[in-house]
């Protein structure tokens, strides 16, 4: 049994009196596609925050490829190969698309301290940016200000920012939220075609997208893990149907 890409052991997060994440344990194998589903307020995003380092868990252990990252700062986890997208678009609206990608590339390099060379003239940054942008279907927009991109295009950019450094572990928080059905299809196809060198954890509300992409599904309810299994198993499970579909 090889080292899991991600391992959570009894992870709990309390916000004052509120228990957002309750004693969650799970393991994701390298290259796996794991989808996390659950009704609103189930603690999915809080769990992601614990994994990516936005918040520290109240107790429990988080390991990434065998390394304990429980108490590492967010930036340090990124340096270790964790990439993340956010549910609410968090791209830099007052910068150009190229500048957004440049920041993502520079974030893990010492070059982020460079004070002499102009970013706009860094050909390797531009080339890599164009390559990644083409991959998600955002061509010809390199020097456009992000604020003039459509919401769908911003979600595509959001994905690029997470992918550009070839993360080992990719966390996608509802990547298709707010998109039209056509955009949703396009983005899920892109996600599905990502190489298996990237282990993927995804929060998704749309059952069809989730089940089409998932190797395994983890169901959260009220901060705790309810069930884990293959997409089919989860879909058929009566408790899940009650908790999840009952809420729709």
């Amino acid at each position, binding site marked *: 049994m090889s080292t899991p890409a991600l391992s959570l052991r009894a992870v709990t997060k309390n916000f004052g009196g509120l228990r957002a994440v309750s004693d969650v344990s799970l393991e994701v194998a390298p290259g796996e596609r794991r989808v996390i589903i659950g009704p609103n307020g189930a603690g999915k995003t809080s769990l992601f925050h614990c994994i990516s380092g936005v918040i520290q868990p109240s107790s429990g252990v988080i390991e990434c490829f065998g390394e304990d990252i429980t108490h590492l700062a967010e930036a340090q986890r990124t340096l270790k190969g964790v990439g993340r997208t956010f549910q609410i678009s968090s791209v830099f609206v007052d910068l150009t698309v190229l500048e957004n990608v440049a920041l993502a590339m520079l974030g893990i390099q010492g070059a982020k301290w460079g*004070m002499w060379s102009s970013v*706009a003239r860094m050909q390797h940054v531009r080339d890599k940016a164009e390559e990644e942008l083409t991959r998600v279907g955002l061509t010809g927009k390199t020097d456009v200000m992000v604020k003039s991109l459509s919401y769908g295009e911003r979600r595509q950019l959001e994905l690029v920012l997470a992918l550009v450094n070839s993360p080992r572990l990719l966390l996608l928080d509802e990547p298709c939220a707010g998109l039209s059905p056509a955009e949703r299809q396009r983005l899920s196809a892109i996600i599905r075609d990502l190489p298996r060198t990237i282990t993927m954890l995804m929060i998704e509300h749309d059952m069809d997208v989730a089940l089409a992409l998932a190797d395994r599904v983890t169901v959260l309810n009220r901060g705790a893990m309810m069930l884990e299994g293959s997409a089919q198993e989860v879909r058929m499970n009566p408790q899940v149907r009650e908790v999840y579909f009952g809420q729709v």
Partner: protein
Amino acid sequence: MNQTNRIALVLLLGLALLLPQMAGTYWVTLSTQMLIFGMLALSADLLLGHAGLFSLCHAAFFAVSAYTTAILQVRYGVSGAAAVPAGILAGTLLGTLFGLSVRTRGVYFILVTLAMGYIIWGVGYRWTALTGGDSGITNVPAPALGDLKVTNASQFYYLVLAVVVIVLIVYQRLVSSAFGLALRGIKTGEPRMRSLGFQPGAHLYTAFVISSFMASVAGVLYVYLNRFVNPVTASLHNNVEAVLMAIVGGSGTLLGPFIGAGLVLGLRNWVSTFFELHLVVMGLVFIAVVIWAPGGVVGLVRRLMSPAGKEGQS
């Protein structure tokens, strides 16, 4: 930088070089003042226009370097060659201390820097034994390096112009670099920067120290222009104006702070020749900028010059 900008800059430089040949001492001195305060405004704008931090203590570095150079030369007979670096060092060291303010953001940052600026003013005003209190330090000699001495206003003007040009070249590279981009990233989305692997605090602290260095250089030039320094140099008024000049001229741009300095100083000199309400005019200008021209003069010029339909291009 595109063609139009380059041509404009060359023209401006040409004009600047020719100024002493065309105008009298009054204008030369005024222009020197504009260049010096422009540099002070530029230093504050590195933080404001790029990192989004509104600092009200940059005149403190300006004043500390001015005072240090003045005290060393006047009271201890230290030569200019040593007093100048000492002054710049003193201001920058203060910057490394005050730089701790980057632990705060937004309004709190404004208030911390306000307090810090006030402390320096208080020291200048109250610690009479060191700073000469109200009267400050007078009789500062003309700037000299060994046998080379600045003897007239035009010479000093060219010296200051040279320093400003060098600073601008370095500044331009700094803000177009990865470091500069990182600052703008922090300004526009700090949480995201953390998830990308940046440590915003480290970048902001470095920017703060760099800006204090720039303000200190301006301070040394200032004390040689005026030949004296007093607590007014570190007043709240000066601290506020450093930032205001940048905003009025165009925050986040290269020349905006200098244009702003020119406007504010020019207004002050021009208006006070015929009536005493120059602060009223200044206040109205600030109000007008907020309401009608948030991008300052540079923003206005850009708006006027860009053809409609090119929205979305940076």
